[in-house]
């Protein structure tokens, strides 16, 4: 078991199974197909992301360095939250980027009852340590515990 301390971007506690992207997470490329065509599991559709392509994202602890790609990214994440297909939490090794932050903030301000804890600045060691299938818990103080 390892603990990592990050910064709380969106508060909350959750325990979920990890899915890990070592490269930037392209939100539009990853989620657009799933949201458009009724895939409630939000299977990652990004052909350029070998870590995640074809894997379920909804309800998972999404571990990533940052998000990249189209600036529709934030609204795609907002839509995923509104449709209940968002990851259980988003855990960034780097400081959060503007697109992911926007999605998270828009969901927390404009949607009722959405909880998707977001922690950033967890460090490169976090992303080196965490592997697909590990159990990840987010604590109230921004500590992330990887089992």
């Amino acid at each position, binding site marked *: 078991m390892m603990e990592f301390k990050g910064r709380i971007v969106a508060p909350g506690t959750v325990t979920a199974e990890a899915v890990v992207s070592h490269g930037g997470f392209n939100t539009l490329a990853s989620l657009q197909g799933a949201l458009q065509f009724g895939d409630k599991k939000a299977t990652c559709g990004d052909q350029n992301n070998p870590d995640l392509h074809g894997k379920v994202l909804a309800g998972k602890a999404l571990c990533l360095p940052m998000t990249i790609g*189209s600036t529709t990214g934030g*609204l795609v994440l907002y839509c995923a939250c509104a449709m209940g297909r968002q990851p259980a939490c988003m855990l960034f090794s780097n400081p959060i980027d503007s697109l992911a932050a926007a999605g998270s903030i828009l969901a927390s301000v404009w949607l009722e009852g959405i909880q998707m804890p977001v922690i950033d600045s967890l460090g490169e060691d976090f992303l080196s340590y965490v592997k697909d299938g590990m159990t990840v818990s987010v604590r109230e103080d921004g500590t992330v515990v990887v089992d």
Partner: protein
Amino acid sequence: MYLTDEQQAVLNGSKGETMAKVMKTLVMYGETFGADKLVPVTSEYNHLVTSFGLKMMKPVFDLMQQLIDAGAVSQQKFSVDPRPLDKNVPANLLQKLIFNKFMYATQESYEKQLQELGLMNEDAFTCACYLDQVGNKPKKGDILSWAESSAVVYANSVLGARCNRNSGIMDIMGSIAGCVPHFGLLTDEGRKATWIVKVETTKKPEAQLLGSAIGMKVMEDVPFVTGMEKWLGTELNDENCAYLKDFGAATASNGAVGLYHIENLTPEAKEQGAGLIAPGAKVYIIDDAELERVQREYPVMWKNPEGAPKLCFIGCPHMSMQQLKDWTVRVEEGLKASGNKKVLVPTVFTTAPAVKKEFEKTEFARRLKDTGVILSYICPLMYMNNPLCKTMNVITSSNKLRTYTTSRYYTEAQILDIITKGGEQK
């Protein structure tokens, strides 16, 4: 973060609950990135990234309606990304059914919302809003609340305006409130280059390939690119602006670049030179072999990789007037050399509606039509945004389109060869 009395009052509800939420969104956004204050948006027009009435975006339409109902509409008129539909672009019956009855069934109602929110005019649908014919070209130093990634990187880099890589919806929040948080690319410090990219190729690099290589390497950082003077010179003429448009779109989509500097060419690089480079900047050298490696490693996502191309898109981002004219000549010459009358692969050039109207007044429009190329205002990305395109072999010279779809990238010379001569595809 410091707020003026007026901003604080809005946050406290002086202009109603919806405006308070708009302000709260911007304040939270700023605080996440350590912004010290909110600064006024100074550009004449805004530009939004969300042009498409995709059914999956119902939560966005609901939010837009909430804004309209509360009278919280944009303080600026705005342009918006391209329309996702154009009946002139080839599509089979099943595609037409899916486009019109399923995917974009809400297009008409969404465009009505855009009009209520402050759309510039009926032609204001393009990702390249800064083209002269469109008329949304910010001035140097203007503060923007834009989102479209290719437009943001162009406005920052080529025009010297200041804009963060905002997300869709966040763009209109800044325009409604009339202010945006002061951080990142709005600050002098945030505009310093943390990468030096040395271009050492033996020929002028393909804009979309060079941009792809840089984007994938530097990700969200700011690159200072050297070695381009012998290819581009030192003036931002039409040809160079088109080159940088395509280059920037690739940096922004293959990575997350919001600003680049080209030595002795882009405005801030001309003014400040190496003073723009931050201490400890990393170095990336790009030569012919590196560009070949980058192109070779693109995954081929066609269901039948050995199959022939069925459709070709050129113009993501939208083509400029000069690009349309140049490509018309290139296609004519390619056909003449091969002895063909029409292009061998159905080919669509995409451009802004306002550019299309102007182009159609020139002799080039007839000449282009004679080659069999279709001219459209469509967003090729939105056209391909459906599962049917997985079985459709689409080729493109756009690295942005390649990134988000199953289309296959070729250099412009390769594309020309394929569409005019049926040249080697691999």
